[in-house]
């Protein structure tokens, strides 16, 4: 049974012509741990607030457990206090005038749970979240991580079917972030609650969620497992948004309609109808060698940046700058000439609409190199010349 279904959900704030959330349809299964991922202002928090009922929709429909809670077509709106959905705010919104314990048992009191049971459930959830020792403190006396655990406990105490988290880790420092990440995973396993959280941090999304919904400008870009999103980005935005260092993009030259012409070295036959505009490759997929051959591109090492256990190498390729990341200590120095091999299966192609182009292996054909004399760009010609001489030396 799906826990939450959004159908063509749209939100237009007053005075904005562009919708903040644009026709988003999405199903969250029971027990799922989903992340809404996107840059700030992409509408992900708005979706979360609409699910909770703090915000209402402009059109479309929200159903929780198959019960419609917000629909313009049915003129129906169930206020948040009746939805029984948990929501943890980005800055926690703890009530400053109540102790931790009062914060946690507030919801239970409202449900008129008998005192004995209330006490038990309160203690249980507080001990699970390891905040029992702070029960009598006020929120202002707690650290950020403790406050967040209180905010979580406050929602978990009433045992909501769905838990919504708004940027749950963004207000924490690096160590706490790591700790809370583990905590959230553990929570999801212990309570089995459906969790939807919002993040602009791809790393957070990758490590926590089992499903990621990438959003941009109010529109859903792609839904999938972290692996799928990383390996098969459905469009250029997703490809660029996910991955650090960013995916390398190489603008393809306008050439004859038969082939993809990557700086005149890599050619792929175009599929029948669509034309590739941009070729992309993840930094770690680039292979650097000293030996030049027909499948390599000549590049110059501009910069080597150690990042602790791994290295990011900035390469220049004609006017393009590419990044390569590697786990092994680079054997070159800045200024060295290298040859980059871009393995065919690692290449992504996007068309003029920035959509992913699926090219079967047979479409790629390196044997049909354009002759260097056909190159329009003088600088490139020089580069190839250098490369050829370099190759001779090698």
């Amino acid at each position, binding site marked *: 049974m799906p826990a939450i279904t959004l*159908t*063509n959900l749209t939100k237009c704030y*007053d005075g904005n012509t562009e919708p903040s959330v644009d*026709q*988003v*349809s*999405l199903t969250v299964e029971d027990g799922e741990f989903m992340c809404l991922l996107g840059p700030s202002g992409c509408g992900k928090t708005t979706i979360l607030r609409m699910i*909770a*009922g*703090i915000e*209402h929709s*402009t*059109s*479309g429909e929200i159903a929780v457990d198959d019960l419609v809670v917000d*629909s*313009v*077509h049915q*003129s*129906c*709106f169930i*206020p*948040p*206090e*009746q*939805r*029984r*959905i*948990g*929501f943890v*705010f980005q*800055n926690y*919104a*703890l*009530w*400053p*005038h109540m102790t931790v314990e009062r914060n946690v048992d*507030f*919801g239970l009191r*409202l*449900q008129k749970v008998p005192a004995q049971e209330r006490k038990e459930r309160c203690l249980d959830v507080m001990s699970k979240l390891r905040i029992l020792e702070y029960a009598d403190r006020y929120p202002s006396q707690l650290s950020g991580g403790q406050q967040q655990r209180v905010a979580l406990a*406050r*929602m978990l105490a*009433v045992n909501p079917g769905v838990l919504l988290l708004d940027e749950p880790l963004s207000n924490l420092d690096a160590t706490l972030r790591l700790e809370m990440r583990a905590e959230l995973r553990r929570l999801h396993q212990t309570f089995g609650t459906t969790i939807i959280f919002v993040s602009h941090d791809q790393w957070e999304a990758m490590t926590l969620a089992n*499903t990621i919904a990438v959003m941009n400008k109010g*529109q*859903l*870009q*792609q*839904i*999938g497992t972290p692996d*799928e999103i990383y390996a*098969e980005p*459905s469009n250029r935005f997703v490809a660029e948004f996910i991955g650090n260092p960013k995916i390398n993009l190489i603008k393809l030259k306008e050439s004859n309609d038969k082939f993809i012409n990557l700086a005149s070295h890599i050619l792929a036959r175009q599929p029948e109808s669509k034309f590739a505009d941009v070729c992309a490759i993840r930094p770690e997929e680039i292979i650097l060698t000293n030996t030049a051959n027909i499948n390599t591109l000549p590049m110059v090492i501009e910069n080597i940046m150690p990042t602790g256990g791994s290295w990011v190498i900035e390469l220049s390729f004609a006017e393009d700058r590419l990044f390569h990341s590697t786990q092994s200590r680079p054997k070159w120095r800045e200024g060295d000439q290298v040859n980059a091999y871009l393995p065919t299966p690692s290449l992504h192609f996007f068309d003029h609409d920035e959509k992913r182009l699926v090219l079967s292996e047979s479409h790629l054909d390196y044997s049909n190199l354009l002759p260097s004399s056909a190159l329009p760009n003088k600088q490139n010609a020089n580069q190839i010349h250098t490369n050829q001489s370099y190759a001779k030396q090698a």
Partner: protein
Amino acid sequence: MTTLLTAAEQKKPNLWRRARHSFAVARHEPANLIGLVLAIFFAYLILAPVLSILVDSFIVQSGDEARTHQDEGSFTFYYIVRTLYSRISEILIWQPLYNTLAIAASTVVFSMSIGVVLAWLVNRTNMAGRAWFATALIVPFMLPTWTFALAWTTIFKNRTVGGQPGWLESLGITTSNSVAYGYFPIVFILVLHYTPLVILIVGNALRRLDSQMEDSARVLGAPSRTIAFSIVLPLIRPALMSAALLIFADCIGEFAVPYILGLPVRYDTLATGLYRALDTRQNGVAAVIAAVIMIIGVITLLIDVRMMKEARRFVTVGGKGNMDRLRKLGRMRLPASGFAGAFVLIGVVLPLLTLFLSTIMILPGRFTLDNFTLDYWIGSNLDTVALRNGILLTPEFWQAAWNTIVIVGSSSMISGVLGLLVGYAVLRCSFKGVGSFLRQITFLPYLVPGIAFAAAFLSLFAVARGPIPALYGTPLILIIALVAEKMPFASRSGIAAMTQLGKEPEEAARIAGANWFSRMGKIIIPIQAGPLATGILLPFISGIKGVSLFIILAIPSTDVLTTYSLRLLDYNYDQAANAVVLMIALIAWLGTVLIQKISGTGLAQGLEN
């Protein structure tokens, strides 16, 4: 489940559906209802009186039928013509207008010059006794203006006016009218009163100024003088302008001081002229004068708003600077303290001491032991026509004190709660129009000086209108007028408090399943208890000191301490009047201390709001 980019295109819901959905949403948001109710309430309480007085200036008033040759209630330009263009308009408006502007402008100039120097001394130098002066210099602002006026008359009063002579007079020194009454003492007193405001506002700006800006200039080798004139002064200019305009606007509406010091020599300001017109039943003329005062107020505040908008362009975020910002005064250290000390002496010690001494002296200005008595405080069976007991044993005094507490207290409480509700409605209301209407209408009384507002209230509520009976003579009209007068402050602090709180604590409570009443009772009000207490106490203090509303709207049975003391003054019971004034000052001071205790803020911050 890899992509879900296109969903079936659904047609955009039509207007009717959307309206019904908005209604379904709004139904669950009580702020909408509160906002609407408040909007109607304030439209009647604030907008109606102001409109009513504007209309009054074009309508033949009762009793003026013969003069205008028109029926009562018909449209006329008579009052406009009479006030602005007739033979007596020089007395009715032009001279008072000139006097008012002269007083306001002089007060601004002098209080700014003194205030900026004192603010600099207190905040940026190593003047001796800096911390003590930071508090002591503010005290004159806590005292009602007419405290100073009464102290002034106690010392300088001359034979122009009957009754007990001034101290100098009885010591054989004849004071000239120009020293005893009129322009000079009025400006002198207003400068004393408003200089602390400059110290507060400018001092605050100096403190908030990011010291890194000065430090950067210093690092580049700028001497202190250059830093002061090219960095600091331009940056605090908005604060200076704002202080100047605030003082200007307040001076325009100032009533009590010119009433005490101007009337004896017929030195009228617009406020006293308005009072005189009302007192002589020239309601139409009064309406025109009130309109003129309002227009000046509106212009002043429009300038202020415009300047604040400009000022926002260079709002600076405070930072932490490590360099020593205190300027060493060297040999000037003690003279500087002497200057500040002189201000405290003239602004606090002398007036209060004078007033106190005057209440324990039988004959003014005779400093012999047998002339001192506590009879005016606690004596009984005195040798006077009325008021045969000391003030503390007089039932009327306690009645007035009780009235003050009831009237001012309840109105402060109402305005505090309303202010919080306005803040709530403004921030939560789904309809933007209602929110901004509330915001603006509650600010409107700020544009209308108290005396004009009182006149407006009188014009609307003096007679029965529709279901509302005539309220004049009841404490209710005072309470309502006070509530309306305090709304600009109350709503501003309510909006500020609710903005600072944000929506999230309440949203969190909604998600936890709380209905509106539990949200209000268990979340919003408990969190806002501190601001609410301050929001009630501050209007209470300024309400106690207020004169202009009461002098027009109160009658003897609704006497409050201020009107009681002015009445005593009219009957020449100077000692008793001054004793009452001292009691008011005492209450005001205690209240301020209480606010400080509750809000935990310093005296300076508490008052500036």
